[in-house]
């Protein structure tokens, strides 16, 4: 039997796609790269996932796992033809323990659906990527996703207690568990952020967080990016870690305002969104300090969201920002680098300069609090040479971030997009260690091949030979 026939006999024909148009629909995510899909399947149980893995393995067909396809780095885009295992139908919330504040959920559960489902218990799932309404918990685990509220709460890895995972052999493993410090090697933390290269996560045991008793959301405007950046680093230097601290520049605010029509300050050069959570008295005091520090840094106005509706509108504005970019151009390239907070203003001005030098349109929206930059380049890929120009500019932006002591990626993952830039932050010996870990899980390179680690990440590719216990010279 062919691969597709065998998959059909296992899942039924409705949940196996092989028509050229269907495969074309599945060949990209929310980012800029597209790939090639041999077949796409929609399993509903862990056993079905395991069966698909075994079938693909028998046919020597690589496997790429996919959630809702909202990734921006090509993590779920197969570079060469592969079986795409789509996990969106595994969207059941299996068990919510409101005493232990944990939940076992299917990998295909939408991030926001989980928080909604636990809201009546006064609990939520803290990591909140901008795409949280559309992205899946499985995808969040794959990329170790962040989000505005990860400034105070930490990224996905801090909220995952256990995982159920199908291995490259088609076996089912349970990693971690409800115990705060599970015995043995902590494979759970190894798998979070591994972008589907170590196994296919099918169920996730998440930590739930108590809804804060009081929330204060501030909208601050500035007449320069530098002033806004100064307000960010001064606030944190003063010992206040807001739940979220987000920045948008003027072109971004204008594009979003076109969509939400909420009276955003379109005249400001930069806008900061700061959220403080905790007990009422603490929140009030902190809000006053943030306001004072911001005014000292040059804030031109400070507005506090009057009620939940106003607060929801501000967050809607922030979370829809990257999708609003088509108003500027048909394609976008969303960067994701991290710089030390103190270097924020400096790196941003370098990023603007790069954009100008390459003549590309840029909108900026970022998690200012943790120095996570998201310059958004809006371009038209049909313009000759444009895609290449955008890519070269992107690479330069990554380089200035890294040179300032930052990192390649804050939360979107490495995927295809950043793979070949890994050498900027890792020595060959570091990459080799990662490659060995990967080999330990998947010796034949069946799972998401060509992702995260550059080709030739193993030491022998570099002419080195590092044995366990030795260090590279």
């Amino acid at each position, binding site marked *: 039997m062919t691969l597709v026939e065998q998959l059909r006999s296992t899942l039924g024909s409705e949940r196996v*796609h092989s*028509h*050229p*148009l*269907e495969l*074309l*629909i*599945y060949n*990209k*995510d*929310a980012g800029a790269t597209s790939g090639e899909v041999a077949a796409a399947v*929609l399993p509903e149980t862990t056993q079905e996932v395991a069966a698909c893995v075994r079938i693909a393995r028998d046919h020597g067909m690589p496997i790429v796992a996919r959630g*809702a*396809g*909202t990734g921006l780095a090509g993590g779920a885009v197969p570079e060469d033809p592969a079986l795409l295992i*789509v996990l*969106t*139908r595994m*969207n059941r919330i299996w068990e919510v323990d409101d005493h232990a504040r944990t939940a076992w959920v299917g990998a*295909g559960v*939408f991030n*926001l*659906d989980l928080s*909604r489902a636990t809201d009546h218990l006064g609990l939520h799932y803290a990591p909140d990527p901008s*795409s949280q*309404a*559309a*992205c899946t918990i499985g995808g969040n685990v794959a990329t170790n996703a962040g989000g505005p509220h990860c400034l105070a709460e930490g990224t996905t890895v801090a909220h995952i207690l256990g995982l159920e995972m199908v291995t490259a052999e088609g076996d089912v493993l349970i990693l971690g568990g409800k115990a705060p410090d599970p015995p043995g090697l902590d494979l759970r933390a190894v798998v979070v952020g591994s972008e589907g290269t170590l196994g296919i996560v099918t169920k996730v045991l998440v930590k739930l967080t108590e809804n804060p008793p009081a929330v204060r959301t501030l909208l601050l405007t500035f007449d320069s990016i530098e002033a806004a950046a100064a307000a960010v680093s001064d606030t944190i230097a003063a010992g206040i870690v807001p739940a979220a601290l987000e920045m948008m520049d003027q072109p971004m605010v204008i*594009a*979003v305002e*076109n*969509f939400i029509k909420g009276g955003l300050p379109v005249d400001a050069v930069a806008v900061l969104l700061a959220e403080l959570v905790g007990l009422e008295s603490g929140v009030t005091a902190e809000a006053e300090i943030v306001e004072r520090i911001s005014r000292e840094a040059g804030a031109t106005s400070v507005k506090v969201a009057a009620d939940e509706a106003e607060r929801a509108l501000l967050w809607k504005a922030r979370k*829809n*920002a*990257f*999708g*609003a*970019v*088509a*108003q500027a151009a*048909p*394609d*976008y390239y969303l960067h994701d680098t991290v710089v030390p907070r103190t270097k924020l203003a400096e790196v941003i001005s370098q990023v603007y300069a790069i954009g100008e030098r390459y003549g590309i349109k840029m909108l900026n929206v970022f998690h200012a609090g943790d120095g996570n930059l998201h310059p958004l380049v809006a371009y*038209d890929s049909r313009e000759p040479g444009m895609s290449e120009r955008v890519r070269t500019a992107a690479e330069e932006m990554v380089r200035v971030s890294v040179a300032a002591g930052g990192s390649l990626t804050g939360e979107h993952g490495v995927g295809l997009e950043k793979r070949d830039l890994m050498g900027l932050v890792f020595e060959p010996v570091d990459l080799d260690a990662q490659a060995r870990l990967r080999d330990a899980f998947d010796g034949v390179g069946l799972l998401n091949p060509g992702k995260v680690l550059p080709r030739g990440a193993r030491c022998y590719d570099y002419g080195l030979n590092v044995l366990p216990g030795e260090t590279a010279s």
Partner: protein
Amino acid sequence: MKLSLGPSSEQLDACVTCGLCLPHCPTFRITGDEIASPRGRLTAMGAVADGRVEADDTYAGILSYCLQCRACEAACPSLVPFGQMMEGARARLAERRPTTSGRIRRLLVGRLLNMKWLLALLTSGVALIQRLGVMRLLPRRMRLARGLRRQRVFPHSAVGVHDLSPAVPAGTVALLAGCVMDQWFPDVHDATRGVLQIAGYQVDSPETQRCCGALAAHEGAAGNAAAMAARNVAAFDGYDYIVSDAAGCSAHLKDYAHWADGGESVAARTRDITEFVAELIEEGRLPRISRNRGDVAVHDPCHLRHAQRIIDAPRAIVRAAGYNPVDIDPDALCCGAAGLYMVYEPDTAEELGRRKVEQITAAGPKTVVSANPGCEIQLRAHLGRGFKVLHPIELYWQAIDR
């Protein structure tokens, strides 16, 4: 007028494939399948438009599985005009690859809906079936007839009814009678007329009007839709406002600019009855009943909430009628009616209907308001006994007319 139907390359370019539409799409919610998502459908339209794939059965299936609820449009930060693009894509497909079932569907919504005598005959037939109690003998796809109100054996029409009073009206209103609305929901028209007259408007229902053409546009019968639009542009000429008490129709009238010459003027003068009346209540030109008569569940028709972004108006009307409006679904996912969809995709329509009923049951109220006829039929068919479903304007009319 030369129709410039989408999807144009500018429209296709407007999608940056961010995926923020996905959770708002009812068919994606049910299937988890990108193929059944707005982003997937746009990719398919683009692939066919630039010749990368053929417009084959798979493509036709992808298009026809869409409910055209336009929830994706309201969620799209890049303002992709999805509804218009889907209508255009279906019209192009109908030209390029006509199928028998497609022809039947387009004949039904493009021509037969405009034959008043035929609709009247059908209505009489339904009335007899209701009186004989043989509803269960109908084939499954026709079971939605269970959701119909009790029909008159001799139906009456609002078309051609003119208003002679008052002497100096606050304004002139042309009431869109509609196709099934006119035959199957005469009480809603009576309520609309009654409420607007109290506010001092002269309400006519011009003879020369036709069905608005929304269903024809949705099914890809573009020629028929354009012809109906042209007739209505002429029929509604000179009125201050054009009011519809069916959300699907008011949404379509507001889209007339790309269906007929002079369509912009109709679009600009069109008001859904809910927004019109909510505004009159707000201005104090219609009364508020300050009494608590209990809870009423508010169902948001897609073409009211997503296509026209009207959310508060039906709630304001319920409140003014002395009831407490209760929300049933924060996402306002489609109930599965979606015009003819409930006939040709009964499985999906039933699943969506089942989910909506679950939400209504969880919310509590036994009275549900819906500002669109298709939704009302679907809700009544799925809710069964023990629930009352009506148009918010009827609730209000009953509250003030005593």
